[in-house]
């Protein structure tokens, strides 16, 4: 019997099935699948189950009131996704952020990148049937959450990076604990490498699965780990340094495989660089104030700004339009998961059902972030 590989709506061999939104492996997200037996012929993402109208909501609140709700779409990566909003408002107002505030923005962004990537490889481990990875990563992630909580005062949503700098200074004596965490985590990453990424079982499962070429990655607008795993060295932290990223010595890793394994391995390579940045930031952080006093309702001159940063999942962008009133006229949130969603139907075709979770999770897709 031959397998039908082309989608034909009239064929009685093709069965349409939903993957999600209740499926525990899909998040709050549905993928419509058209199957021939256990062979995937075509797929179509169906987002929107957790659309919260963040953009409309922003138009009803002033520039400071917008801070807490704009970080809600990705609580794993809350500092990174708030950062471009703060950059955009700072740019509109012409704020010069104090150096200590800039360094604290970098520290929190990088700690959040690690927290987010740990979750990513934990879930990737879970869906490859590697239970050790999810238990280890979820446990180890907590040390980073503890560190972030010491600075930001909460475990996940810090509302820490605000227009004008950061909300508060870090407590005294944190540097030693942070450097200890960095040293411990570097050894720990070697263990992840051995037990998970170089594990023959994982390699068999993930290598050469869901290959995305660099041309397709660029054409489809992929960002972040997905783009770099396909061999494109693109990272906003290097391309367009913001918040004093230019002061730090770090590299942008990239891989040429473009497969699910490369996309997951990118997370480990990036965490190594994040540890490098955090260590330098804690050692070299200058003294001084951490924020400008903007008041509860700052006056923002009319204008428009397109600000972008590198969040854990990729390029995060904000298009903020001000008409000079206390509230933004328009806030457009460009989230990396939404940008990477276009890759999903490209990869989820002509594969077996068993590969769906592997490919889907390797994109580090976060439904809340895409829906906003």
């Amino acid at each position, binding site marked *: 019997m031959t397998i039908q590989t082309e989608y034909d709506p009239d064929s009685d061999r093709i069965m349409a099935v939903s993957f999600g939104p209740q499926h525990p492996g899909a998040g709050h997200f549905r993928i419509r699948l058209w199957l021939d037996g256990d062979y995937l012929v075509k797929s179509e993402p169906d987002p929107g189950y957790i659309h919260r*109208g963040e953009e409309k909501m922003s138009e009803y609140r002033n520039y400071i009131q917008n801070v807490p709700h704009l970080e809600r779409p990705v609580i794993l990566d809350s500092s990174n996704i708030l950062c471009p909003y703060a950059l955009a408002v700072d740019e509109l107002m012409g704020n010069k952020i104090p150096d200590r505030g800039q360094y604290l923005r970098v520290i929190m962004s990088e700690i959040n990148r690690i927290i987010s990537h740990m979750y990513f490889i934990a879930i990737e481990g879970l869906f490859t049937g590697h239970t050790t990875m999810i238990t280890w990563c979820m446990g180890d992630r907590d040390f980073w959450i503890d560190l972030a909580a010491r600075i930001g005062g909460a475990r996940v949503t810090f509302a820490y990076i605000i227009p004008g700098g950061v909300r508060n200074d870090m407590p005294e004596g944190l540097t030693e604990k942070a450097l200890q965490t960095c040293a411990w985590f570097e050894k720990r990453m070697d263990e992840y490498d051995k037990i998970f990424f170089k594990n023959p079982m994982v390699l068999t499962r993930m290598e050469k699965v869901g290959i995305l070429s660099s041309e397709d990655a660029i054409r489809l607008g992929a960002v972040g780990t997905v783009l770099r795993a396909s061999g*494109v060295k693109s990272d906003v932290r290097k391309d367009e340094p913001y918040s004093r990223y230019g002061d730090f010595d770090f590299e942008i890793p990239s891989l040429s495989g473009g497969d699910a394994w490369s996309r997951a391995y990118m997370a480990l390579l990036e965490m190594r660089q994040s540890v490098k940045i955090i260590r330098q930031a804690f050692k070299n952080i200058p003294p001084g104030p951490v924020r400008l006093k903007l008041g509860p309702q700052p006056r923002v001159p009319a204008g*428009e*700004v397109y600000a972008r940063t590198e969040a854990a999942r990729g390029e995060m*962008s904000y*298009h903020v339009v001000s008409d000079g009133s206390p509230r933004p006229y328009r806030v457009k949130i*460009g989230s990396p998961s939404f*940008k990477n*969603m*276009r890759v999903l139907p490209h990869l989820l075709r002509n594969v077996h059902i068993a590969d769906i979770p592997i490919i889907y999770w390797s994109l580090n897709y976060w439904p809340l972030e895409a829906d906003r």
Partner: protein
Amino acid sequence: MREKRLKVTVPSETIKEVALMVRDELAFDHPSAVSGTDWIAKDEIEIIYFVGSATKAGFQDFVIALAERIPRRDPVAPSLIYVWAGVEYHERESQEMLGINFEGNPYKGHFLLPEDWNDMPPLRKDYISPGR
């Protein structure tokens, strides 16, 4: 807009040709976002395509904002999915949130909004959120 951001506003009849020129001659091949703004006082909707370059050396920090303004009462614009495939879902979003009809984008259903949404496009300025 700041340095390294270039905003070009073109008539919607020529946006396809300009987009092809931006992609092929300037090598701005990496679509980043599509934003739409409802300028209710001017009776216009502005659509902006933000495009970066992943391959052109030295231009990684540059973003071109290709903009067009269309009448609010008849918001029809040509789709650019054949220029940058990556803008497809961004256009779908602008289509339902601002009520823009992208000619050439085959998808006409609801993407982020509920399937049974029968109110006006919510990012239009005259749409008032419930409870406001």
